[in-house]
Each structure stands twice: as structure tokens, then as C-alpha cells.
């Protein structure tokens, strides 16, 4: 009961004009970053991370939640209108939405995307509120060896979620773990890997790594593209007019999609969100495939299926709620955005874990409320108010946008600690991430490895220290044994090509902008 009261108080906290301002401001920032191809919600939060030093924790978290939700939704805008997904999670929406756009039903597609996002976001936030106390109780049952196994499980999932590039995903995860070992050892007062530099003795902060990996590397990548052009290089006049009245999806179409599709996709998205490293694109893909498999109209897929849009958008927005569960209860981020939000928590002195709910729920509850309200109110409101002008809003000259991002990134890394060294580190990590990206190494595992590496080491050494160096403790402890079994099952399942081939679905881009889908059952 107390939990529900605290959650409701979180909703009242949003009524504070300052907090509300941060939520609405965050939503618009997230919409912009989510809609502009190349920019992401992670980048938006990464750029705003230094500012959170000078903010109270509640507005900072409320803003982050709003950016997360809007960033997931906004990818569908450019995906539908110009067939360029603003975010990777909108790839499925671009297939169906743009097909509808070409048939003259662009506004209708945007309406379905917004409705799917709204329902998914709301269900995801509700599931988060309902399951967080359960997850908190579960987390209390896990002992130190189990915590080690849980982190190991998270790292395995992060690596294998880069399905086509597992060795490269492993390299960047390990690189993150190695970077995290720089500085004072977690158990003994000795400095490691400082190479004689006093600055490195303190260790490497998360902020320059985030800013370098997500902001500076993006600027360097953009230098190789049409750097003088527009972010969306299509004249607004070339796009068919979008009228507000067409945004509202007709009830007959919603009935045809079916309530069950929305609910099932949202639940799939939520549980995929809980898995570390999976993220919105996996949620959208799996849910889209599931909707296609059970569809009464499978022949519509690839030609403008409203059901496909609803499934993908409900799942990627519901994922936002799921991604918060492991982050809040175990300090394991479900995706890169929650990894940065974890940074906000740590900066403000909040430690993830069950005690966070016991002692500081009043700080976390407004964030839950922000997720819920952003989905329920701000998504439809933004579509109706800005929908017809979206393309004009996100068409901005790269020559103006990227210098602005560079200033925010570098000055941001300075203002956090007033240290030039942090700026140098941000540049160094940016160059490193640029070369990794150019060679198709995924950079998200780098951040997740950096966050999880110290915890893995800490729980491993603590477990062995508590068991007189007996490694059998990881098998004799039931929670740890269970997680190792799950780990082994995942690895075996992943290593079995026959299992992977079952129900395979792949998407082939056959030139711009036509897309073909192959579905094998």
C-alpha cells in the first residue's frame, strides 16, 4: 500500500511546474534527437548528463525518462515519412509506414505508430510499477555468488545480442571491462594501470566514456558523410501533405489489428527490455515477427501493414519500462539509454538495489510517472501539434548542428568536474569509438562492459573470499547454479544453428528505398 501511495505521490511531483517543464522539455529534446537520423535518445541523455550535476535528482530523472520514451517513438516519424528510421528500433516501422506513405496514407501510418507507442509505453510503465516490488524481493534472495552469476549472465546476453558480430561484440565488451580496471583496485588500496599518471590513479569516469563514445564519435562519423547538407535531405514540398484529421486511426482499423496484438507486443517488448543489451530494435523485430506469424493478413506485411506498425511500435516503447527493472534493482542496464540513466543515479549518490525502493522511492516514483505520462499524453499531443511540421523541424543543416553538439559534448565533459583531463579523455574515447565503428565493432557493449566489469570483479572476489577460495561456491549456491544453467542454456541454444533457423525472419534491403522480407517457418 505504501508503495502505491509513493507512486501516486510521484505523479503529484510532476505537477510541480519546474518538474513538468523538464518533462516536456525532455520530451521535445528526445523527439528531435529520435527523429533526426544519426542522432539518438542515448546521445541526447549523454549530452545532458553533465547538466544533471547542477540539477535536483527528480527533474533530472524525469527528463531522462521523457527523453527515453520520446526517442523511441520519434524514430517512427522519419521512418514513415522518408523511409529513414530515425532510430534503429524504427526499422520495422519504416518498412510498413513508408509503404503506407507512398499510398497516400502517411498521416494514418503516423497515427498508428503513435497509438502503438502510446499503448506500449503505458503498458510498459504499468508493468514496471507492478513488477518493481517483485523484482526488489527477488533481488534480496540473490547472494554474492548469485550476483556474480547474474552479471556474467548479463555480459553473455550483451555479447550474443550482437548476433552477426559476436567476436566483435566480445572485443568491445572486454575493452570496456579493461578500461574500468584503471584506477584504485576495488578490494585493496593499490592503483592499477595508472602508468605513472596521478590523474589515472583516480580511475576513469563514466562521463568522458559516454560523451566520447556516443557524441564525439558521431561527429567524426558525420564528417565523412554529406557534411554540408541537411539532416533530412528531402524538400518538405516533395512529401505529400499531412493533415491533422487523418492522424486519428479509424476504430475499424484498430479493431482489425486487435487489442491482443497491442497487449502481446507490449508484453514481449517489456520482457525483452529486461534482457541486458537487447534494446528497442530487438523488441520491435521480435514482436513484429510474432505479429506476422499469427496474423490473419500476413500478405499485407511489407506492403503497408498497420498491424506491423502497431506491433513494432508497441514493443519498442514498452521496452522502455522493462529496461529500468534490471537497472534499478541490480545496477544492470537493459540498454544504452538506461546505462546513461544509471550514470545520473550514481552522480546523484543513489545506489541501485532493493534499498532504493525502500528508502528513496520518492525520488524514483516521479520517473515512473514521467514514463507513463510521456506515453499517455505527450506522444499523441506532440503528433497532433507538430505532426504536419515534423520534417521541417528535423531538417537542420549539419554544419550548424554538429558544431553545437561538439560544444555541448566538450564543455559538458568539463563542467562535470571542472577538469581539462576529462575533455582529453572524451576526445580520446571519441577517436577510439570512431575507429571501432568504422570497422563495424558495436560500441554499446563497450559502455555496458565498463559498467558491469567492476561489479563482476567485486562479486567474484567477494564470493571467493567468503568461501575460503572455494570456486564450488558458484555451484553450491542455488541462485548461482540456476543462473549458470540459464547461461549454459542460452549459449547452447545460440550455438545450435538448427534452433536458430526455426522461424527465421530476415529483412533484405534491395536498394533504396525498396525492402523485401523473407519469412520462413
Amino acid at each position: 500500500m505504501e508503495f502505491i501511495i509513493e507512486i501516486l505521490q510521484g505523479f503529484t511531483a510532476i505537477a510541480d511546474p519546474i518538474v513538468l517543464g523538464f518533462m516536456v522539455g525532455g520530451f521535445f529534446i528526445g523527439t528531435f534527437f529520435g527523429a533526426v537520423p544519426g542522432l539518438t535518445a542515448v546521445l541526447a541523455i549523454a549530452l545532458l548528463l553533465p547538466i544533471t550535476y547542477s540539477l535536483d535528482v527528480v527533474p533530472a530523472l524525469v527528463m531522462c525518462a521523457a527523453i527515453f520514451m520520446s526517442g523511441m517513438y520519434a524514430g517512427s516519424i522519419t521512418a514513415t515519412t522518408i523511409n529513414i528510421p530515425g532510430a534503429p528500433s524504427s526499422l520495422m516501422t519504416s518498412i510498413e509506414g513508408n509503404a503506407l506513405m507512398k499510398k497516400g496514407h502517411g498521416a494514418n501510418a503516423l497515427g498508428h505508430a503513435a497509438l502503438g507507442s502510446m499503448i506500449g509505453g503505458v503498458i510498459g510503465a504499468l508493468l514496471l510499477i507492478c513488477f518493481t516490488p517483485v523484482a526488489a524481493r527477488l533481488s534480496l534472495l540473490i547472494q554474492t555468488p548469485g550476483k556474480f552469476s547474474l552479471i556474467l549472465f548479463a555480459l553473455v546476453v550483451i555479447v550474443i545480442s550482437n548476433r552477426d558480430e559476436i567476436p566483435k561484440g566480445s572485443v568491445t565488451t572486454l575493452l570496456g571491462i579493461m578500461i574500468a580496471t584503471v584506477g584504485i583496485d576495488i578490494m585493496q588500496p593499490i592503483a592499477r594501470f595508472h602508468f605513472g599518471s596521478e590523474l589515472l590513479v583516480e580511475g576513469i569516469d563514466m562521463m568522458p566514456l559516454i560523451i566520447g563514445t556516443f557524441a564525439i564519435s558521431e561527429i567524426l562519423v558525420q564528417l565523412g558523410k554529406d557534411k554540408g547538407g541537411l539532416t533530412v535531405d528531402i524538400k518538405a514540398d516533395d512529401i505529400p501533405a499531412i493533415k491533422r484529421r487523418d492522424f486519428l486511426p479509424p476504430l475499424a482499423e484498430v479493431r482489425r489489428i486487435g487489442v491482443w496484438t497491442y497487449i502481446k507486443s507490449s508484453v514481449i517488448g517489456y520482457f525483452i527490455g529486461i534482457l541486458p543489451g537487447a534494446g528497442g530494435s530487438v523488441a520491435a523485430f521480435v514482436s513484429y515477427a510474432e505479429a506476422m506469424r499469427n496474423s490473419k493478413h500476413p500478405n499485407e506485411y511489407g506492403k503497408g501493414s498497420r498491424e506491423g506498425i502497431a506491433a513494432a511500435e508497441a514493443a519498442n516503447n514498452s521496452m522502455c519500462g522493462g529496461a529500468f527493472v534490471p537497472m534499478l534493482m541490480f545496477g544492470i542496464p537493459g540498454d544504452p539509454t538506461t546505462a546513461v540513466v544509471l550514470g545520473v543515479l550514481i552522480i546523484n549518490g543513489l545506489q541501485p538495489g532493493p534499498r532504493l525502493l525502500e528508502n528513496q522511492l520518492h525520488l524514483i516514483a516521479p520517473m515512473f510517472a514521467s514514463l507513463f505520462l510521456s506515453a499517455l499524453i505527450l506522444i499523441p499531443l506532440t503528433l497532433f501539434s507538430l505532426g504536419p511540421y515534423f520534417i521541417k523541424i528535423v531538417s537542420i543543416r549539419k554544419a550548424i548542428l554538429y558544431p553545437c553538439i561538439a560544444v555541448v559534448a566538450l564543455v559538458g565533459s568539463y563542467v562535470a568536474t571542472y577538469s581539462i583531463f576529462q575533455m582529453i579523455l572524451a576526445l580520446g574515447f571519441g577517436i577510439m569509438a570512431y575507429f571501432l565503428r568504422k570497422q563495424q565493432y558495436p560500441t554499446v557493449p563497450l559502455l555496458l562492459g565498463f559498467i558491469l566489469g567492476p561489479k563482476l570483479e567485486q562479486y567474484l572476489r567477494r564470493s571467493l573470499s567468503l568461501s575460503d577460495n572455494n570456486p564450488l561456491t558458484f555451484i553450491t549456491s542455488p541462485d548461482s547454479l540456476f543462473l549458470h544453467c540459464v547461461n549454459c542454456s542460452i549459449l547452447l541454444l545460440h550455438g545450435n544453428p538448427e534452433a536458430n533457423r526455426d522461424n527465421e525472419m530476415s529483412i533484405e534491403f534491395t536498394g533504396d528505398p525498396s525492402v523485401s522480407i523473407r519469412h520462413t517457418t
Partner: protein
Amino acid sequence: MPFALFFLTTIYLITALQITPQVDEGLVGPSFIPVLASIFMYAALGFVVRGILNDPQKPQNDKQSLWVLAQMVIVTAAYILLFKKLGYPLSTFLFVYALLYIFSLEEKSYLKRIFYSAGITGIFYILYAICFNVRLPLFEGIS
């Protein structure tokens, strides 16, 4: 890239092996995870190299000029080094001006570039110093 990472891992591993623990923890000590991470890194790099050797004709769509990249890095490094000495307003103005040049904004219109540089510098000064009360350096000796 695999060779650069191999080189870095080797330096990391050598340094890890030189760590002397203050307290004997038995099997695992301060160097255990670093050594383990290095071994796994070698293995992962081995798989990456095998992938490259098996598929050597992967399309390279890297059209980016290294010179443009170097320009960007040099300008950014100079900005970082001069940030405290010149202060935020002057260093940021020069940095943004240089970036606008690199990003090919209005190649012939210096006035426009000056206008945009001043505008961007001013907007972010207001955001940081006024909205968020962040102390930005004004000039060496003045803060």
C-alpha cells in the same frame, strides 16, 4: 584494428602481471580479472582475425578523408588545450568558427560564419552559465 587492440592488450597484460597485491587473496587478486580479460581478448581477436581472413573482400565504403578527420581532431585538441587559457567565450568562438569551416558552411561567406560562431557561443554560454549556474572560465586569471 585487431592488431592495435592486440598491441594494447599485450601492454595491459604485462602491466597486470606486474601488479603486486598488498594482501594475499589466494587465487583471485587485483590482477586476476585483468589477466582473464586479456586472455579472452586474445581469443576474441583471434576469432575476429579469422573472420577477416575468411571474408577478405568485404565491401569497404569508407570514403572519409583522413585529412578531414585529422583537422577535426587537431582543432578539438587545440580547443581543449586553450579552453582555460583563452576562456570559454574566445576559445569556443574560434572552435565553432573552425568547425563551421570544416563542415563546409558557406565557404565564401566569412561574415555568416562569424555570425553563427558568435550565436552558438552565446547560446551555450547562456545555457551553462546563466540557466545552470556553471562556472565557465572567462580568461586565464579571470573566472
